[in-house]
């Protein structure tokens, strides 16, 4: 089932593009614009080094808000979940398969980014790879939680799509995923504190640069809280039809 879902994911041109290709395009764009000089903004790191965790956060946000939401609400609206319900298959398996696939795709997107970054720009991972992976898993799962909640609350595919989009863009722009929050006006910087993706960006950027988990307790707390709320609310709002 998981393998099937993965094939379906890749067959959907939009989702495959946004998860795998789009971030790479940005990486090359940043690389071309910013050059390879270290900048004080990123504590001596080059822009290109800092852009990898930022773009990873962007992938997480897109797969969480769009892929998860759209797949689940489309499956429900079209009666695909209904049909699954006629079989002895456990509903949990459906959800778990979905999470595994979206997670694998997100991870693949990140791997491509890191590989391209290493090959083309010789980026350096300042921190521990496992520690970064841990942060990545926590961030992904908490964002998939948002996706499942959205899919559960929104009555139709269209409304889920609109709300997903409305949430997606401010998150991408204001969280620091593409450029640092410090470049934004002070008033906008305050808004950024209320955006969940900001915590993903901060956490991943910190872990990438080699900072300790202890420095990011707030980020971890917020994300873990979101994950918990996401699980509870999506379990409550899950509908077959």
């Amino acid at each position, binding site marked *: *089932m998981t393998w*099937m879902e993965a*094939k*379906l994911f890749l*067959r*959907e041109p939009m989702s495959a593009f946004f998860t795998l290709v789009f971030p790479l395009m940005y990486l090359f764009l940043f690389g071309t614009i910013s050059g390879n000089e270290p900048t004080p903004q990123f504590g001596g790191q080059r822009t290109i080094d800092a852009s990898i965790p930022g773009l990873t956060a962007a992938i997480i946000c897109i797969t969480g808000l769009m892929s998860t939401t759209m797949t689940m609400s489309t*499956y429900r609206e*079209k*009666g*695909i979940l*209904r*049909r699954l*319900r*006629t*079989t*002895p*298959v456990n509903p949990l398996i459906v959800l778990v398969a979905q999470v595994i696939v979206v997670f694998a795709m997100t991870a693949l997107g990140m791997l491509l980014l890191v590989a391209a970054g290493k090959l083309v720009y010789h980026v350096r991972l300042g921190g521990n790879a496992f520690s970064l992976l841990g942060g990545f898993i926590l961030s992904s799962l908490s964002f998939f939680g948002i996706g499942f909640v959205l899919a559960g609350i929104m009555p139709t595919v269209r409304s889920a799509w609109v709300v997903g989009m409305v949430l997606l863009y401010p998150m991408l722009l204001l969280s620091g995923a593409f450029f640092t929050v410090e470049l934004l006006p002070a008033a906008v910087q305050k808004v950024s504190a209320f955006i969940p993706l900001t915590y993903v960006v901060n956490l991943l950027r910190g872990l990438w640069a080699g900072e300790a988990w202890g420095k990011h307790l707030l980020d971890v707390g917020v994300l873990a809280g979101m994950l918990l709320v996401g699980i509870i609310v999506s379990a409550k709002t899950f509908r077959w039809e």
Partner: protein
Amino acid sequence: MDTIVQVEGLRKVYGATVAVEDVSFEVREGEIFGMVGPNGAGKTTTIECLEGLRKPDRGAIRVLGLDPQRDGKTLRGRTGMQLQQSNLPDRMKVWEALDLYASFYPKAADWKELLSQLGLEEKRNAPFSKLSGGQKQRLFIALALLPDPQLVFLDELTTGLDPQARHATWDLVRDVRAKGKTVLLTTHFMEEAERLCDRVAILDHGRIVALDTPAALIRSLGAEERVIFTLDGGLSPALEEALSRVGRLEVQGEQVTVHGKDGRKVPLVSEVVSLLTEQGIPFRDLRTEQPNLEDVFLSLTGREMRE
């Protein structure tokens, strides 16, 4: 014969609307049992309660001796279901759907065999969204047969199909029964119920208004057989006199209809034809009309079946 499905006093309410009220019936092993009625009569609600997809407000249901609410999982492994509104992901291929669904059952039937039995061999690699209505329904039948079920539920199987695909689908349903499986189906086509089902329950406004074999239902109507023909130049008084002794007459211009009660010794049509030939009267466009389930529904509810 074993009883496969037993329903007693089923009731289901949605808000203020009573969808199903006091529905009771039995389905026996090896038969094709049909629930027929207009849209909103409660057919789908009833079948979904049997499938365990909806929880009845009142009443007792046994399917294969199990309670669909309590033993839903076991039951879903032993019954096949085709739902009225359901789909597969657009980009899922026919063989992938069968392979995936086969993996849900511990002892699944061989899907490659089903593929060829249902004539889907050449559509094996076609994505779901590219299938025609008839092909989709065939795929759904294949999915319903995957658990090698004792009982198959088919909800509005032929709705939206063209007449040719509909007839082909009927043959498939007969094949399913020929394999020793019991079929419970719903339809709003009276003709389908009459041609396909061994026994039919007619539903209207959530209640069963009649339940029997199609033939018995039609017989119970005591309905008249009709012979209709056209006479060039109209009806002469002598012929009118002779024909009215055979049955009740209805004349519309040149078209004559003779109504005759059922259960006569000589068939109405031969009596009418021999009378016309004896008198050497030329006639054309002669046809007979038998009462059908449509008439049964009309006489039971006072309404036409057509939506």
